[in-house]
């Protein structure tokens, strides 16, 4: 059963420069994502990945096509982890998570999410006093906490140093295994994508379309194993040489 069906015929920007040229970002993109599937979108920077996530999140509705999430499109709950953490600086870590709830925030759930992400000690701290990696983890908790119909993640590990990125990635992965959700994850790091995803979707430069759709068949319990990831990557690049040019 498909959880998300995306069918976009056309997304065109009018560029804001003086020439007023039309700029086609997406042309004829069809994508279905199953329930609790973890899908990675990979493509060159500027190919329109963030635009696509914003369209799914409902932040951008100027396009021709249809995006259906679950049974209801307009009321779907979205958990969005942006490229920058986008926490409210005037609220503490805990308040930042609580503020996204419509009803009373579930204290026990937030407690356990904070513990899973190793943030229990800093829940009363203001975000600007935390490292970027910690802020990213807060943003991930915020997205998980509302139990969304779909989780959108836009390169949530970018500009972290390699060890922090790996730590946050592992935490995210174990969190997702405990609480499976449908995930659309944008990345430009092939190793990161292989370690996390069920499926890799490779996208072209604009106008964006799908070049290849590759399942990742490494067992879940071996995703921490660098040699497995590396072997899969070698195999992938030799079978699909076109991918090398995209990343």
């Amino acid at each position: 059963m498909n959880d998300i069906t995306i069918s976009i015929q056309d997304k065109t920007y009018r560029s804001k420069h003086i020439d007023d040229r039309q700029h086609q970002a997406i042309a004829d993109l069809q994508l279905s994502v199953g329930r609790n599937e973890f899908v990675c979108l990979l493509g060159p920077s500027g190919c329109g990945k963030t635009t696509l996530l914003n369209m799914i999140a409902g932040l951008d509705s100027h396009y021709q096509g249809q995006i259906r999430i679950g049974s209801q499109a307009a009321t779907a709950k979205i958990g969005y982890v942006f490229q920058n953490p986008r926490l409210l600086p005037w609220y503490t870590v805990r308040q930042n998570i609580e503020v996204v709830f419509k009803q009373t925030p579930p204290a026990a759930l937030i407690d356990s999410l904070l513990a899973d992400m190793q943030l229990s000690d800093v829940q009363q701290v203001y975000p600007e006093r935390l490292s970027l990696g910690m802020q990213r983890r807060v943003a991930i908790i915020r997205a998980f906490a509302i139990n969304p119909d779909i989780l959108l993640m836009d390169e949530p590990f970018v500009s972290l140093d390699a060890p922090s990125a790996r730590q946050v990635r592992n935490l995210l992965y174990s969190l997702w295994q405990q609480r499976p959700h449908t995930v659309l994850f944008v990345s430009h790091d092939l190793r990161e994508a292989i370690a996390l995803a069920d499926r890799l979707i490779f996208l072209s430069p604009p106008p964006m379309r799908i070049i290849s759709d590759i399942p990742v068949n490494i067992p879940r319990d071996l995703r921490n194993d660098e040699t497995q990831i590396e072997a899969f990557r070698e195999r992938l690049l030799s079978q699909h040489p076109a991918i090398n040019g995209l990343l």
Partner: protein
Amino acid sequence: MLTGTFKLSHSAVTLLSLLVLLGIWQLAASLIDSHTLPYPVRVAEVFWQVTRSGELPYHLGVTLLRLLVSFSIAMVLGCAIGVALGKNKALDAFFDHWLVIFLNIPALVTIILCYVWFGLAESAAILAVVINKLPNVIVTIREGTRALDKDLLEMAESYRFDRKKTFFHVIWPQLHPFVMAATRSGLALIWKIILVVELLGRSNGMGYQLHLFFQLFDVASLLAYTFAFVAVIQLIEWLLLRPLDRKALRWRR
């Protein structure tokens, strides 16, 4: 230890500076020896008399009430219009010219026109103050609205915050410093304008009293009222504005 010493010397400096000012006044008064510059003690006596008789508290209270009413109207209207202009470019392009004109009309002109057109009434006095203050609030809040963080607004939208929630949790904390700036500059401006308003067309309030003292050349009373005035401004700053600042800025690094 170090900060303790610093605090002590800081308050000592304040005390010393005020004492020196008082000393200069005393010296000048004894040199000039005229009733146009009374001794500090004389002013203190007058201050005590008019406070006990209830005359000073009454006129100060009337002025404060006018201040409160006109300030509130100007802030609420100014915030609403400022946010609207900051959000809507077309509206802003149209009304910007009005703002420039109103910013440059001398306060005295607005006051006279209000009294001429609407009579020497309380509402005309309040209106005159509001018109003088409003453009400043609008311009400041408009700046604040333009500076709103689009990333955070997108976050609020994707997490389906409704309008009320977006305003109180995302927009208001960002506007707060601008509102405080408008409050400070606004109070300073209104204090000055309201005296002229009262002097020209009201039969009570600080401005009316100052006019009376001028006609009687009663400098001691004039100074006594002035000090009460300065004291009230400082009290508002210490008891109201500073705590509001601290509360709103506690999250800053």
